[in-house]
């Protein structure tokens, strides 16, 4: 996930810099294409310096836009999860069922026993994740693409049909909507088939993104429901640490995967990655509709320019065949996220160098990041006694973590994990807000003091 972000943006920037380094006039041409305006006043400097500076500026230039392009889908996913948690009680009910990767129960008598059980659960889960990652790396290294793709296809099938069926059923139960099986079958069938087509083959980018967000939200809801309290928090913390190690250590599996893909110069299953190019276009379209065309000639141009890359992923086989398949595979036994995470983490999308008129490649974020962010915020809204304050605090913390991660990416220009900073902030703010801020705000509210 994180890898995907970093590598994807990295690849964006690196490809851009490479392209612009090839010819002298490219930077200015890039600027023309980017801004729709003649190259602005950039005094001619030493060629290499100016090229490098301009390359850096080009990279940084899109930093703010990239951040927003990721803010919006992450926010949407969180909103879906929080709305579901708040309204559909099914996902907060503990009916005693747990995933088989977390066999130890937390309803023990002593706190020490509970702590021990949750640590064992987290350990088992993380080791399963590590094992699955290694399996996938091995499969990838030995070019067993069919195996991986079939697996992902099956996982996606289960997710899009089975889990959304359950979700829809619970929503209908909550709102007391009478529904017959025939209508339900038609709805689920259409939803699932369109989802499979969008994700595995071709489809409108916005629809693809919507399906990816829905899928991430569904997975996050599954985790919120089936992971016991302390286990969930420990898993979040452990996953962040693992993400950090796996991406940054020279022998980390994710790093090996990325390097293998780079050696082979092929895209690594762009199935588990959310690409946000079209989201940005969507925003621009809105602004166009509100009649601000005159002030934004740039976006119009960039709209057209950015259309090019969106076709590519579809030619590459869609965004999330891998992820969806994995999800479905996991959904069967209702177990690991590890698989999806592994897939997700292992799929920094390696794109071929951009077409010449293709400046804006958009940003990509792994779906596992979506899942864990939403899981944190969903858990905050489900179980925090500070309720909405805690939810809002975690939401802001995660967004700021994402912003910082992208900033670090722009500065260091190498693969960085997206999970650690956001999850760290999220966890700190969750526990701090729930335990420190909530009593303070409650007391203020009782006395009606305002700060």
């Amino acid at each position, binding site marked *: 996930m994180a890898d995907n972000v970093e590598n994807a943006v990295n690849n964006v920037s690196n490809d851009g810099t490479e392209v612009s380094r090839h010819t002298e006039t490219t930077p200015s041409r890039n600027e023309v294409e980017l801004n729709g305006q003649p190259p602005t006043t950039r005094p001619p400097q030493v060629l290499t310096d100016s090229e490098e500076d301009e390359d850096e500026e080009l990279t940084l230039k899109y930093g703010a836009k990239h951040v927003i392009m990721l803010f919006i889908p992450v926010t949407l996913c969180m909103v879906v999860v929080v709305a579901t948690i708040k309204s559909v009680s099914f996902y907060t009910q503990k009916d005693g069922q747990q995933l088989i990767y977390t066999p130890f129960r937390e309803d023990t008598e002593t706190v020490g026993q509970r702590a021990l059980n949750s640590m064992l659960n987290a350990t088992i889960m993380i080791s399963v994740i590590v094992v699955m990652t290694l399996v996938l790396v091995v499969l990838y290294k030995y070019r067993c693409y069919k195996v991986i793709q079939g697996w992902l296809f099956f996982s996606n099938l289960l997710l899009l049909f089975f889990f959304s069926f359950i979700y829809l059923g619970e929503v209908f139960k909550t709102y007391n909507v009478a529904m017959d099986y025939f209508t339900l079958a038609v709805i689920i069938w259409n939803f699932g088939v369109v989802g499979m087509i969008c994700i595995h083959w071709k489809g409108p980018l916005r629809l693809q993104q919507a399906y990816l967000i829905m899928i991430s939200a569904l997975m996050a809801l599954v985790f919120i429901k089936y992971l016991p309290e302390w286990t969930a928090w420990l898993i979040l913390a452990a996953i962040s640490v693992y993400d950090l190690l796996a991406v940054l250590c020279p022998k980390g599996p994710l790093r090996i995967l990325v390097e293998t893909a780079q050696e082979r110069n092929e895209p690594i299953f762009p199935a588990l990655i959310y690409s946000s190019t079209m989201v940005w276009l969507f925003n621009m379209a809105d602004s166009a509709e509100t009649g601000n065309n005159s002030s934004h000639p740039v976006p119009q141009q960039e709209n057209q320019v950015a259309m090019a890359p969106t076709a590519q992923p579809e030619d590459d086989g869609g965004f999330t065949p891998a992820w969806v398949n994995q999800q479905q595979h996991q959904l069967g036994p209702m177990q690991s996220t590890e698989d999806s995470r592994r897939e997700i983490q292992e799929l920094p999308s390696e794109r071929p160098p951009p077409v010449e008129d293709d400046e804006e490649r958009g940003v990509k974020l792994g779906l596992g990041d979506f899942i864990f962010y939403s899981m944190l915020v969903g858990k905050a809204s489900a179980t925090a006694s500070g309720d*909405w304050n805690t939810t809002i605090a975690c939401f802001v913390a995660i967004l700021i973590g994402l912003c910082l991660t992208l900033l670090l990416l722009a500065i260091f220009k190498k693969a960085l994990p997206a999970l650690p900073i956001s999850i760290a902030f999220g966890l700190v703010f969750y526990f701090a807000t729930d335990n420190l*801020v909530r*009593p303070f705000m409650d007391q203020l509210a009782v006395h009606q003091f*305002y700060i």
Partner: protein
Amino acid sequence: MTLAVFFGCAFIAFGPAFALFVFTIAKDPLRVIILIAGAFFWLLSLLLSSLVWFIAIKASNSQDLTLQRGLLIFGVFFSVLLQEVFRFTYYRLLRKATEGLAAITDDDGSAISVRQMAYVAGLGFGIMSGAFSMINVLSDSLGPGTVGIFGDSQYYFITADMPSSKIFRRVKTNLKSSSLIQKMRALMTLALTLLHTFWGVLFFEGCEKSCWWVIAAVVSLHLLVAGLSLLNPLYEGSLPPVYGITLLMGVWAFFSSGGSLHSLNALCTRRKAEGESS
């Protein structure tokens, strides 16, 4: 009934802030980032001040109610001071990042100015402050514990897995959240949101020009507003002065950020001219 209260209070408290966001901030990614970072800094200040208050509470006798109230008042003023400290920290951070930010924005000269950053940062503070004071009340006004749901109310008090603190809080809030109090709360929240915005502008302006008296005035006015809120629930004593201060701050911020009667006049006459010509 409660739905009307919910929408009324929500729009009172968040309407202007939402409008400001939609019209001035939503289209520029950089401003959105600065807004959210501003919210984050306010959150940090709240966190630290709650930590201090919590430690003080734990160290003191929990039975002594006047002491508790005194500690709470201390917490209020300490929180106000900490908010201003974090506002200053945010100012320093933004100044340091100005060169980097200038590189991030498009090179057609739309780099964000310090005044714009001041406004956005202030609005970020205000929105977060408003959200924290209002959202829980709003969700309570919709019904027990959940937003927009018609089921589960029969499990409201009986449910076994609701922590007792939550039940207690629900009882407390239901007892005290009459719609009048909610409306007052919404009005106060609106005032505070606007005040934070204006204070942001003035504070940054003061820091830019090294006018320390401006900064001192902002801090003391914030303390004054917090102090006025100590008069609650006598809202007659707190709301009108606070709104007076809000108007004053608005006018001051307008003139401080370069507005003038002339520009206002030009705005009106230009509107009229456009209206006549079209």
